[in-house]
């Protein structure tokens, strides 16, 4: 009987050393406790998941692009000001499209989006010295020159939507109204850069800044 217990102990130790402890790093696909052959169609149902693979479509993707020259219901973008940054005459829009209300919440939203998507290159201050400059993105311009201060909002919108030279498009990351919010925040940065002590009107803020 003692031998049986010894053999059991040995087998346990051997198995434990094969299976290892919880949390060890491994690269082969995880084991299925309820395998697919025993419970077919539960874990992997015949449905397509976002960014998943498909054996049906020729390019192997589950995500489809709408066919050319079609518009999904409710997705018609017929407001050229809002969606293209162009006015009726076909020039770049000056100011913001009438449909948007530029208020504090709008600019705050713009600040958040700017910090995520633009600051890595254009820097939090908009001076073009974001962290990527150190790694070789030398062409990033500063916003604080007259060319960009006077540039029509519509043209900046177009740069965000379609990119320009080495800056690629951000249309997949920012919805149209978010792009306008980012522009509003860019304008706030440009204004702040030219700020003078006399511009600060809030007495409490004057005190913290040490302005007499």
């Amino acid at each position, binding site marked *: *009987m003692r031998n*049986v*217990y010894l053999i*059991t102990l040995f087998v*346990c130790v051997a*198995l434990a050393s094969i*299976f290892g402890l*919880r*949390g*060890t*790093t*491994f*690269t082969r*696909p*995880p*084991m*299925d*406790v309820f395998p697919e052959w025993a419970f077919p169609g*539960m*874990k*992997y*149902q015949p*449905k397509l*998941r*976002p*960014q998943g693979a498909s054996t049906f479509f020729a*390019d*192997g*993707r589950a995500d489809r692009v709408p066919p050319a020259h079609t518009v999904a219901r409710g997705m018609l973008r017929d407001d050229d000001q809002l969606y293209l940054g162009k006015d009726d005459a076909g020039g770049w829009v000056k100011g913001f499209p009438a449909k948007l209300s530029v208020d504090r919440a709008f600019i705050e939203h713009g600040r958040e989006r700017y*910090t*995520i*998507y633009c600051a*890595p*290159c254009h820097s939090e201050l908009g001076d073009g010295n974001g*962290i*990527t400059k150190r*790694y*070789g*993105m*030398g*062409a990033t311009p500063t916003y604080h020159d007259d060319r960009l201060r006077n540039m029509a909002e519509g043209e900046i919108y177009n740069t965000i939507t379609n990119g320009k030279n*080495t*800056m*690629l*498009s951000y249309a*997949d*990351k920012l919805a149209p109204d978010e792009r306008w919010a980012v522009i509003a925040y860019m304008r706030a940065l440009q204004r702040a850069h030219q700020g003078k002590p006399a511009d600060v009107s809030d007495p409490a803020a004057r005190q913290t800044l040490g302005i007499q």
Partner: protein
Amino acid sequence: MSKLFPKSANKLPLQILIYLGVLAGIATAGATYYLTPKYTRVGYAPVQPVPFSHAQHVQEVGLDCRYCHSSVDKSGHSNVPTAQTCMNCHNVIKPTSPLLAPVRESFEKNTPVPWVWVHRTPDFAYFNHAIHVNRGVSCVECHGKVNEMDTVAHTQPLSMAFCIECHRNPEMRLRDPKDIFNLDSKNLADQGRAEDARKYIHDWKVMPPQSCSGCHR
């Protein structure tokens, strides 16, 4: 006629029973240890087609999770970034690096980069990123310290028990909304602000589903 069985054989049935009991105990212990997602999934770190390092891009370059996983706060699905997202920088930074060849190929030919899926809920369970992220649950609760990983590894079991544990008692795990994407931040309870967390849950009516149909819909 000699005795066929020695006297000690009288104890044998009992000994066999005891042994079977011990064996059952070992089997139960083994199954609870090895046949749960805590063992089968935690530590899964597949080899990716591009040795992309979160530690380098998040800590060194300082990118926000949303720069790449841009739909995480807007939709149920958190996207793996497009090749263009990488090319935003890598058309200028290390443009000829051999490590990035699959990304460049994908960008030029419009084919997918074959990233290997790490975290995956089964199709019979419903999960939604935006609702968690916008209601104070940080990525670190479910994905661990991705910002320190060179290769993404599965650090939490993401089993049903894991989900329910938080749904029953979210106040210990919620974060200040501005800390969600900062994986080094502490949750409200650990900051000693459990009171704030309770107030937040009350004011914002945070009610994670505990009934089966909440997740198995």
